[in-house]
């Protein structure tokens, strides 16, 4: 275990940024928190979490996949991939850290998505324990401990100090690069901080939410539930939940004529959109009910069915605070299992 006083945080950022790109959660002019490249004077946000999740680092909203030069009848393929630079992300919450392992199960499964893998290999994750979780937090439901957030280095902020514990080789390497600012210490203060967080966790309003009633073996009964109609009724069919979600990873591939050639890019897509499954030949999900159901079935049933029971949600609470009509996965889970024992 290592530690650094809070007042030296800027020096830590500065030293980190000398070696590689550094991102920290900070406030935008509008007061929304988001991960930003650190520069002199940028301060850590007071907000509990960022509006956009940390998935952007590995799976950006838009990225060029490949280019084409088209001349007459002939086409030339242009590989536009570049090796990613090393980067460090400071202050990732436990929920987002877990989301990476969920994304890994999709993008690193055979055949490997090399765009994702490239970024994943170059990123070092410094996680930060949640001293003051929000009422919308329910990571505990999915077995995530916000008091021990994981990643390459896990951190606690308490009594004017940041405590750092490296967990991986990448984490050790990071500690080496900034060791001149750190002092070695025992684990008591971090352990005390964990105990304090554990006490807070019990008081969270969603502490009692369980995954009972969900999972890969519940496909037929949940799909056929009569409650989807009522749940999806007010859904606007926007993509807010999808785009703020750290585990939503569906994407679209589109071509863009740059005027100098064709750029084929990938961008986030949402199963909530009406054209998501629309083909020239037909549309299997005709109304918002089917689209809405797909999103939640994917996280609560299909994903665990394909991934040894792991759910596709990390309980970060972003959809709870951002859905324009305040419909979200917690309401869906509660409603679907209402009356069950």
């Amino acid at each position, binding site marked *: 275990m290592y530690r650094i006083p809070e007042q030296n945080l800027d020096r830590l950022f500065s030293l980190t940024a000398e070696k590689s790109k550094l991102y920290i959660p900070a406030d*935008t*002019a*509008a*007061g*929304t928190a*988001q991960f930003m490249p650190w520069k002199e004077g940028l301060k850590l946000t*007071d*907000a*509990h979490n960022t*509006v*956009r999740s940390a998935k952007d680092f590995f799976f950006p*909203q*838009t990225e060029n996949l490949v280019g084409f030069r088209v001349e007459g009848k002939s086409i030339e393929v242009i590989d536009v991939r570049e090796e990613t630079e090393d980067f460090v992300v400071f202050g990732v919450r436990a929920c987002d850290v877990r989301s990476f392992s969920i994304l890994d199960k999709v993008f690193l499964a055979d055949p490997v998505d090399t765009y994702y893998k490239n970024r994943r290999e170059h990123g070092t994750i410094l996680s930060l324990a949640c001293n*003051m*979780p*929000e*009422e*919308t937090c329910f990571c505990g439901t999915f077995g995530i401990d916000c008091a021990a957030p994981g990643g390459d280095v896990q951190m606690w902020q308490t009594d004017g100090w940041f405590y750092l514990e490296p967990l991986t080789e990448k984490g050790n390497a990071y500690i080496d690069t900034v060791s001149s600012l750190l002092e070695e210490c025992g684990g008591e203060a971090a352990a005390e901080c964990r105990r304090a967080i554990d006490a*807070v966790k019990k*008081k*969270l*309003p*969603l502490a009692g939410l369980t995954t009972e009633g969900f999972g890969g073996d519940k496909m037929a009964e949940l799909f056929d539930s009569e409650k989807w109609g*009522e749940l999806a*009724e*007010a859904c*606007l*069919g*926007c*993509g*807010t939940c*999808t*785009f*703020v979600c750290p585990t939503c990873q569906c994407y*679209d591939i*589109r071509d*863009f004529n740059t005027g100098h050639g064709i*750029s084929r*890019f990938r*961008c*986030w*897509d*949402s199963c909530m*959109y*009406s*054209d998501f499954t629309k083909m020239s030949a037909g549309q299997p999900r005709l109304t918002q009910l089917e689209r809405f159901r797909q999103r939640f079935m994917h996280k609560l049933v299909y994903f665990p069915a394909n991934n040894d029971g792991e759910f596709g949600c990390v309980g970060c609470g972003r959809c*709870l*605070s*951002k859905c*324009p*009509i*305040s*419909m*979200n996965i*917690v*309401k869906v889970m*509660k409603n679907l299992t209402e009356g069950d024992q």
Partner: protein
Amino acid sequence: MQEIMKKRASELLLDGTVSRVIGWKAGDFVYDITPAVFESAEEIEKDFVYTAFCGANLSKYLVKESKKPGKTLVFLKPCDSYSFAQLVKEHRVNRDSVYAVAVECRGKADVDKIRDCGVKGICGISEENGTLTVDTVYGDKTLPLSEVMLEKCASCKTRKHAVYDELLGEEGEEVADCDRFGKVRELESMTPEERYEFWRGELSRCIRCNACRNVCPACTCEKCVFDNDNSGIAQKAAADSFEENMFHIIRAFHVAGRCTDCGECTRVCPQKIPLHLLNRKFIKDINELYGDYQAGADPDTRPPLTDFRTTDAEPSIVYRRGEK
């Protein structure tokens, strides 16, 4: 107010005047209210709420619900009633199948603004005489409602309804000291470069979730140009920053003259982009060029942008490029 509304909705459902009620449904934390369709007095009794967090404008749901058999009751706050009137005017909603109940409103709260005051872990909120008491995981806090109102309520133009079949509570007045164009004037006084920087900064946060479009009562196209692959400009994400701007600018143009300034776009934006400013700029320009006009205020007048008169001002003459 909530109890009066529940009682009236139940009566109208029970006596068969209406077949369904569009209202607001309670959530888990007081502030997370969901628009909902209620079809029985039992459902109303169980879940219907009308609180300081019922900011959602229910009028757009009528596009779908008013096509169902029987009458649909909708509760409309003053600003919502303008959206409703505009939807009727545009033949998106059949007036005869709607039973519009006007409800009084003194402004709705924005939970994000409560959070911006440093309040974390909100478990419950109660309102009494304009004061919110917030019960959190980390202790109680009190806040004046006036300081945490939704933007649309902080700049409320009127508390008087445009149209209704029945009024519950007291009808309000126009807000005399409303200065909803203040920020627009501020933007107008900037240099083009400053203004460009301002909008680039704001719009760069856009995640193209389409919440603003999908919630907008003026956005009722069956197939939006941005969803139509055949349009050639269908986009789910910006391929470059130019497109990021264009989505919002095209949308603002398309609702110009029809936007009632209901403020839903800004309310729902997950990235807090002040989208209402684009619409208000158009409203202000229209007012200045063609005389004061409020979309949705009445069922008959033709909107200035679809009503050509030989006396119409030529915008490029009125505003010389770059000066204003």
